[in-house]
């Protein structure tokens, strides 16, 4: 922990970065994000199994970006990121939201985080994304801390749910999703927390013409959730923040994960894993499947 704090302090003191985005402890089993520009404040930085937030979302926020610009130059942002959060950063870099040189990634060997604040860290309380996680060591970083540790074993409930849904017929699936989406209150927390929802004006806010019905009735909810899922298809890195943020407990990441599985299946592509692989959206292969076309 001290290593992290010292390192962050040095970065700020030497003016290598404009700010450090990290986690601070709130209670024993709860952390919250903090943006530090004052070297003295680095003592508040922590890293542990309660660092749930995907801080990559802050990289595109205008107020934080404004910290990067001084009178005469652009400075870097440092970010404390779990290996899975690095995936989001990779996706952001690929989508030109931040240049690799403008972000200083401080990462950790990770063995998982809890599913919610206040839980004890064990197999039963492991966050869903950690169960299937294959990246315990970050794929890209500028500084790495921590030792490799075993991740507790746990059952993959969301995969089971997907398989269960697969077995239903169209009508039953439609009913399932209709009832789930029916809960939506259009608070857009899912959008706010998603690192890849960085648009300055979301499609759902476009008024003329009105792309997505803004009322939170069944049909409007259905459109919004489908468009959200589609816009993330091939881009979502599976951080699961939407699930955590949804006040109505709609299993949003279920669709995201299902689409990620399709993407892997159809195009052998996984988002946010490599800076060199061309993005799925915006590129094509002449050998892509022609199956659905008559």
């Amino acid at each position, binding site marked *: 922990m001290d290593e992290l704090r010292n390192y962050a302090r040095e970065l700020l003191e030497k003016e290598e970065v404009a700010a450090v985005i990290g986690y601070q402890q709130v209670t024993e089993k709860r952390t919250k994000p903090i943006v530090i520009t004052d070297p003295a404040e680095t003592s508040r930085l922590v890293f542990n199994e309660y660092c749930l937030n995907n801080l990559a979302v802050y990289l595109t926020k205008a107020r934080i970006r404004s910290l990067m610009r001084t009178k005469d130059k652009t400075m870097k942002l440092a970010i404390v990121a779990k290996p899975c959060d690095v995936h989001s950063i990779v996706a952001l870099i690929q989508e030109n939201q931040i240049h690799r040189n403008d972000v200083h990634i401080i990462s950790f060997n990770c063995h998982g985080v809890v599913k919610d604040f206040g839980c004890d860290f064990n197999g039963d309380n492991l966050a869903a994304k950690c169960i299937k996680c294959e990246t315990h060591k970050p794929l890209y970083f500028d500084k790495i801390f921590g030792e490799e540790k075993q991740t507790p074993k746990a059952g993959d409930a969301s995969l089971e749910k997907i398989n269960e849904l697969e077995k239903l017929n169209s009508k039953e699936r*439609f009913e399932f999703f209709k009832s789930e989406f029916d809960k939506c209150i259009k608070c857009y927390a899912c959008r706010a927390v998603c690192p890849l929802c960085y648009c300055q004006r979301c499609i759902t806010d476009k008024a003329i013409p009105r792309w997505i019905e803004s009322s939170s009735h*069944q049909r409007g909810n259905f459109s919004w959730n489908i468009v959200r899922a*589609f816009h993330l*298809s091939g881009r979502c890195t599976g951080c699961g923040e939407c699930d955590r943020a949804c006040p109505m407990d709609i299993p949003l990441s279920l669709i995201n994960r299902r689409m990620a599985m399709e993407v892997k299946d159809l195009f052998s592509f996984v988002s946010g894993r490599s800076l060199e692989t061309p993005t799925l959206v915006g590129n*094509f292969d002449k050998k*892509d499947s022609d199956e659905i076309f008559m």
Partner: protein
Amino acid sequence: MSKQKWEPKIVAFVCNWCTYAGADLAGTSRLKYPANTKIIRVMCSGGIDPVFILKAFERGADGVLVSGCHPNDCHYNAGNFHARRRWDLFHKLLDFVGIEKDRLQFSWISASEGKKFADVITKVTKDIIALGPFKTYQDMNAEFTTVFPEFAEAGNKEIAYEEEMTNG
């Protein structure tokens, strides 16, 4: 429709260069196909947004066809390749959320394939009739909805704003 019998409502989004011209050829060849499909012309299959399909369903379409030039034959070289990826994903997504696969169909029809156009329209119409009206979607509760929510009067100010933005 004034008729007693239910007739499916089908929308076809087609590209200007291949499928639209193929449909013209079907006409000049006097081929016959069911009258349920209305064509909306765009420049390229790459320019069709998936939201158009949702909009069509919202507006009571029972089925949608998307059609463009064959791969490597695109007037714009690559638009249809991008479209192919997009539709493959979108089709899978709709399938997962429970929209029957045949509600949304795809084809490549070139300017010389008038016969194929007629065949595809006939097939799609048959498939949609077999599926019946798209009640599941149409019956979704949509209270507070005005007739043309896309162009609500209240939005007039926004029109001015958007225009200003777009035209710089």
